[in-house]
């Protein structure tokens, strides 16, 4: 029996169309727009102004607090303007727009392919340099990585868990990184282990990627303390709490962080970015994204410069199909629908999914038949049908009592509901309101 998390879960069609497509470099666009808020936490503060010359890797916006992240230029050229433009969230946010000229990198960045396994940086140096490099969680949550590495006083990390689950259907960027950058990922993992002072790391991979499991298991014999853990394919295993439950059988208490049970979770893409930052002095200026969809000519994986417009990656994959009904930034379960193809790809862009109209159109909502399927699939053990009713009736007291804040918004309930009820839409609404009430009380 393969391991998986303790409660609930679903198994949507995997549709990993681009799994066999090697990572290619996306051409550098003529203009990039780099938002100053690509992470959870305070937006960074721009340190360049109009007409400044910048090089690849140069700091252009500085972290403005502990939970914030540096932003670096992904191209060389001239700052065209610093202005508010619409980003993937649909809101207008401050961005630094750079007109590209050539491709000139800062000199101290090592651009060679040579694998460097020797880790010379100390614990403190690693944490500082991960912060300096602007690395955030690349699984999609974009939580600044150095914050997770700074274990709060009184707590100890026992194990590092690398999230290589990629449980979202369609997405394959983590899968390709494991196959093509296996050694780099493992060195990155060891750097993270050193920063956390743990001697054990577990890399959790779902068994729908047998080639990645085999490849990393073979490589891992050269690295001490790293264990590859194959997992049963089950959504939402990539959720932090679910992955901890699956790999070390511990349940993070409601409202607490993973460190409560001695675990720190980092994404596999983050481990690769950490390798690049520590061993190669390269800040987070590019990442891998999957462009995919059933009607798309060429579902594929691309290494893109942060700030590249979405339409560029669509063009690279053969252009937008006629029947496109929704453009999703991320996977089909938790991704965000985009309203425009002019928005930039950012640190959190793990993929872009073009869904055909028929596949994504919502069906008419019917009466709840109380089948209980939403309850049985909820990975947090909640009662989505009840939370929806309470949110609709504005019964916030009951919502809080029935643990609405535990909801991880994985969407398993809405996905499953035979009556096509928009459970998660209502739960999100209720969560927002209850969150406000709880903050006001403090």
């Amino acid at each position, binding site marked *: 029996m393969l391991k998986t998390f*303790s*409660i609930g879960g*679903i198994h*949507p069609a995997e549709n990993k169309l681009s799994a066999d497509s090697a990572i290619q470099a996306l051409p550098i666009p003529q203009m990039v727009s780099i938002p100053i808020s690509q992470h959870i936490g305070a937006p960074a503060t721009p340190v360049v102004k109009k007409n400044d010359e910048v090089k690849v890797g140069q700091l252009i916006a500085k972290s403005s607090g502990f939970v914030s992240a540096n932003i670096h230029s992904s191209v060389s050229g001239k700052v065209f303007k610093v202005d508010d433009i619409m980003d993937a969230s*649909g809101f207008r946010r401050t961005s630094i727009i750079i007109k590209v000229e050539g491709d000139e990198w800062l000199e101290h960045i090592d651009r060679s392919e040579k694998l460097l396994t020797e880790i010379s940086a100390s614990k403190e140096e690693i944490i500082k340099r991960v912060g300096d490099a602007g690395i955030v969680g690349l699984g999609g949550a974009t939580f600044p990585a150095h914050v997770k590495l700074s274990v709060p006083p009184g707590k100890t990390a026992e194990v590092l868990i690398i999230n290589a689950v990629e449980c979202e259907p369609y997405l394959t960027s983590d899968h390709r990184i494991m196959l093509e950058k296996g050694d780099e990922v493992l060195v990155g993992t060891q750097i993270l282990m050193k920063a956390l002072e743990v001697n054990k790391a577990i890399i959790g991979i779902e068994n729908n990627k047998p080639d990645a499991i085999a490849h990393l298991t073979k490589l891992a014999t050269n690295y001490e303390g790293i264990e590859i853990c194959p997992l049963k394919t089950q959504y939402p295993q990539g959720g932090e*709490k679910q992955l901890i*439950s699956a790999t070390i059988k511990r*349940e993070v*208490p*409601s409202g607490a962080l993973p460190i409560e049970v001695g675990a720190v979770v980092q994404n596999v893409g983050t481990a690769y970015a950490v390798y690049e930052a520590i061993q190669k002095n390269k800040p987070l200026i590019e990442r891998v994204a999957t462009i995919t969809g059933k009607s798309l000519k060429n579902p594929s994986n691309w290494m893109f410069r942060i700030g590249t417009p979405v*339409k560029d990656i*669509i063009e690279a994959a053969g252009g*937008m199909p*006629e029947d*496109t*009904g*929704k*453009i*999703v930034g991320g996977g*089909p*379960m938790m991704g965000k*629908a*985009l*309203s425009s193809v002019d928005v930039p790809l950012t640190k959190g862009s793990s993929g872009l999914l073009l*869904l055909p109209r028929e596949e*994504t*159109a*919502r*069906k008419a909502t*019917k*009466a*709840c*038949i*109380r*089948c*209980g*399927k939403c*309850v*049985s699939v*909820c990975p*947090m*053990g*909640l*009662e989505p*049908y*009840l939370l929806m009713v309470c949110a609709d009736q504005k019964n916030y007291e009951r919502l809080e009592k*029935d*643990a609405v804040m*535990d909801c991880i*918004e994985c*969407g398993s309930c*809405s*996905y*499953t*509901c*035979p*009556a*096509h009820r928009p459970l*998660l839409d209502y739960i*999100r609404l209720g969560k927002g309101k209850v969150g406000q009430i709880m903050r006001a009380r403090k």
Partner: protein
Amino acid sequence: MNTKVLVAPSPHVHSGDSIQKNMYGVVFAMLPALLFSFFYFGLGALVVTLTAVASCYLFEFLIQKYILQSEVTINDGSALITGILLAFNVPSNLPIWIIIIGALVSIGIGKMTFGGLGNNVFNPALVGRVFLLISFPVQMTSWPKPTGLSSGYIDVETGATPLAIIKEGLNSGQPLSKLMSEIPSNMDLFLGNMGGSMGEIAGAALVLGLIYMLIRKIITWHIPVSVIGSVAIFTGILHMVDPEAYAGPLFHILTGGLLLGGIFMATDYVTSPMSNKGMIIYGIGIGVLTVVIRVFGAYPEGVSFAILIMNAFVPLINVYVKPKRFGEKRK
């Protein structure tokens, strides 16, 4: 790139499951039992089933269209299930006009007065059945003998059900071992070769339906297993205490519609609890009440009453029995 695109919150895909798929799945699971009842009771079974189904559809349509003036949703398949279950719960020689009254009570009072599918507290087919049992006790308890495909409709030989034989025998002071020799063997009971209502007799066919529904994930094991299991344990204990006064567990499981109730009626989505823990409590309640009614009550059989009584507790169970939350501290 001027395509208009949708912007909506996640998730952006759906499993493709629907109310119809689940409802027709249940209907498919009832087919073996339906075929068995045609096989044993012939023409009568066909007439009763068609009448029950047609009148359930008709009443739901009329009530939605003309009384509630709401959207007509007879295509969701739930009226079909109610119709078949009502037919399963009555003798195969029941006069047509009584069946129509049963359908009216099932759909009209059991379902539509509460607001239609999803809102009813009690299993509609059982509301109809119990109403008929109390109003027409003679017609509702004259069970045709299973004489085969060539059986007629009204003019058939009737006899008592195994449970009734045991109940009356014990009441008149006869020992159980003698009574047991008057009823069919366990294998006959399992294959349905006994007197009874249409759908309750063929245990084998009902179990086949259960397996299908479990594989298709239409229902989970919690309710059927807890209903049947608790009956087995309770009657097992009684049987061990006094084998001459109480029949064994296998007899109780194979007779009196326990399998029909535990597999198809207690598992009705709308009238059963939402969480797994709740389902088990509900199932045990049904099992225990069934045995109490059968053994200590006036009626020979108790499944219908037990399910209806536990239906009433479902809202309470849903409020007080919560699923195990992730990360909840173990007490």
